[in-house]
């Protein structure tokens, strides 16, 4: 059933966020430390385990994939709720430090990615998406899950 997938996702999300809160309390930080990242790792592990034991039915997978595919719409809703006015009206200090920070990071990312490409630490570039087919629908349910 589809709800099993969504419930699994929800359980991983809540567990991950709870662990993130725990880490934060442990090291005395006032923000969740990597809760979402931990939730992602939990979901990967849970899915892997269930697949290995043949318990991850196609319908169950759909309950996860649907939300993965809702990701872009959610991001667009997020963009529509940003405080763009504050950004546009902020003074030179905010503009320059943000632009400077981003520019410095872009150059670092470019340099590091060129190095890992040359040293073959990076995988081959993904094939371009050819049509308007949503690539998410190929994923996760795919039998060749590594």
């Amino acid at each position, binding site marked *: 059933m589809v709800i099993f997938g969504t419930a699994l996702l929800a359980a991983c999300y809540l567990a991950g966020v709870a662990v993130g809160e725990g880490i934060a309390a442990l090291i005395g930080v006032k923000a969740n430390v990597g809760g979402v990242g931990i939730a992602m790792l939990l979901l990967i592990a849970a899915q892997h385990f269930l697949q290995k034991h043949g318990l991850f039915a196609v319908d169950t997978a759909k309950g996860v994939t649907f939300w993965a595919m809702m990701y872009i719409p959610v991001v*667009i809703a*997020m*963009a529509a709720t940003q405080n*763009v006015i504050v950004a546009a009206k902020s003074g030179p200090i*905010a503009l320059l430090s943000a632009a400077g920070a981003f520019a410095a990071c872009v150059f670092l*990312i470019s340099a590091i990615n060129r190095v*890992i490409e040359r040293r073959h630490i990076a995988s081959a570039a993904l094939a371009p998406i050819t049509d308007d087919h949503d690539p998410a629908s190929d994923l996760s349910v795919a039998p060749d899950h590594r």
Partner: protein
Amino acid sequence: MNAFFEKPILDNPLIVAFAFVGAVIWISNFLARHLTGGRVAGSAIAVLAGLALAYYGGVVTGKAKGLADIAQFGGLALMGGAMMRDFTIVATASEVHVDEAKKAGWLGFLALVLGTIVPFVVGVGVAYAYGLRDPVTLTTIGAGAVTYIVGPITGAAIGASSDVMALSIATGVVKAILVMVFTPVLARFMRLNNPQAAMVFGGLAGTVSGVSAGLAATDRRLVPYGALVATFHTGFGCLLGPSILFLAVKALFG
């Protein structure tokens, strides 16, 4: 006639948001295909459209939540809020190939460290160049250049004034929007075409909202790899900001 539409719209904010975002994406895909000949991704146009609509919402209402401050579009705040954003990000993990992620775990961590320190140094440098000398102010603005959450949390921890906090949040918001807009434009330059590169990007570009929207507009398949690293960014920044980074600034300028 008006009441005929008004009531169902105001009573069902989340459903209206679904329909509205669907329409925005449909129009964006149409424009991408017919106006740019497919050279610009539909989702990149949709993110820009979202930001433009947020600007419009801000102008009309004078409030902080973009289009969601207009009553009819209130559902966007729930659909695009942190809860749904993080929930769908976790869902994308179902597409992660574990081997690809394992290959670059150490790179992700390195990127995370650099992605915290470099923006911080730039932020402090700019604030210093504008004549600010107070270590608390410098640190808070530097932390804002990491993410707009690290900024105020650091500021609150070290006792910054509210106008400095506002400046710090503004810095973070500007950065997030720059990342959203320019990631697809600079993707080729950053060699952003494989999972490991996306992890480096996630660590260095930081800010979850910027990374998630930027990668979504570049190549959807890269999202989980970038997000996996980026979600540690805020926590890591909040750990370093009020501690090591503040002490370093105090030692240098205090």
